[in-house]
């Protein structure tokens, strides 16, 4: 399993197909570290043969640029459209990861994404989970796609 590469493939596919944005891909982090300063996080639960969570952490400027790209207009505040758009990024990345995990003979199910906006928050939990995170950079800044999971025995 090369989860870091799977996250890279899943994320770049979403950005090249839906947003026509090129991403500068950072090195995958396996374990702790690699956090970025974020103002919005979209999370999505994973079930089935694994239990876990996919999260997309974005600074405000990146989240607004992604939303503007989706909607074809300038976006200058963190509003419901931005929460919705980053939630959809998480949803589509998770959908691509579902296909990647099927290649490892692991069937996963996706929950509905949830987004939070804030200035200072921390997403924790999932003791004993493997964590793989990949930073991606756009002109407006760097965002992080983070996967935490445990394969059910």
């Amino acid at each position, binding site marked *: 399993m090369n989860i870091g590469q799977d996250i890279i493939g899943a994320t770049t596919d*979403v950005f090249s197909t839906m947003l026509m944005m090129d991403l500068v891909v950072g090195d995958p982090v396996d374990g702790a570290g690699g956090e970025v300063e974020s103002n919005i996080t979209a999370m999505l639960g994973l079930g089935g043969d694994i239990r876990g969570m996919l999260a997309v952490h974005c600074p405000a400027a990146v989240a607004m640029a992604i939303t503007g790209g989706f*909607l074809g207009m300038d976006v200058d505040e963190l509003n419901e459209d931005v929460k919705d758009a980053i939630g*959809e990024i998480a949803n589509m990345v998770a959908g691509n990861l579902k296909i990647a995990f*099927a290649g490892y003979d692991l*069937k996963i199910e996706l*929950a509905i994404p949830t987004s939070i906006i804030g200035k200072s928050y921390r997403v924790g939990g999932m003791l004993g989970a493997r964590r793989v995170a990949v930073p991606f950079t756009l002109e407006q800044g760097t965002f992080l796609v983070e996967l935490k999971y445990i394969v059910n025995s």
Partner: protein
Amino acid sequence: MGNNVLLVDDSSTMRKIVGRSLRQAGIEFDNIFEAADGLQALEVLEKESVDIVLSDINMPNMDGIAFLREKANRANMKNIPVFMISTETGEDIIGEAKSLGAVGAIKKPFTPDMVNEVLGPFLK
């Protein structure tokens, strides 16, 4: 004469993206109706004349599969074609959708060309 399209997705952003993709694909339409889940979609279909439905699968309240099941039981709407537009690509869930009357599926992420390729033959 264009088409009346119903977009069903709990994400308002995704509904806007799909609407934009239809326009970019050069698909003409008279009206785009929107619904945030299967329950709202059924309400729209009861009131409006709709030629084609594009529906997500994973939604709160009533998901895309339950929507298809309920729609199939209503004589006034059972023949309106539905395309699933979703991150779900598994043969099991897409197969279930097709067994309930869905005529095709578009995988998210998608381009306007992909939308046109799938929907084009079904639109006026």
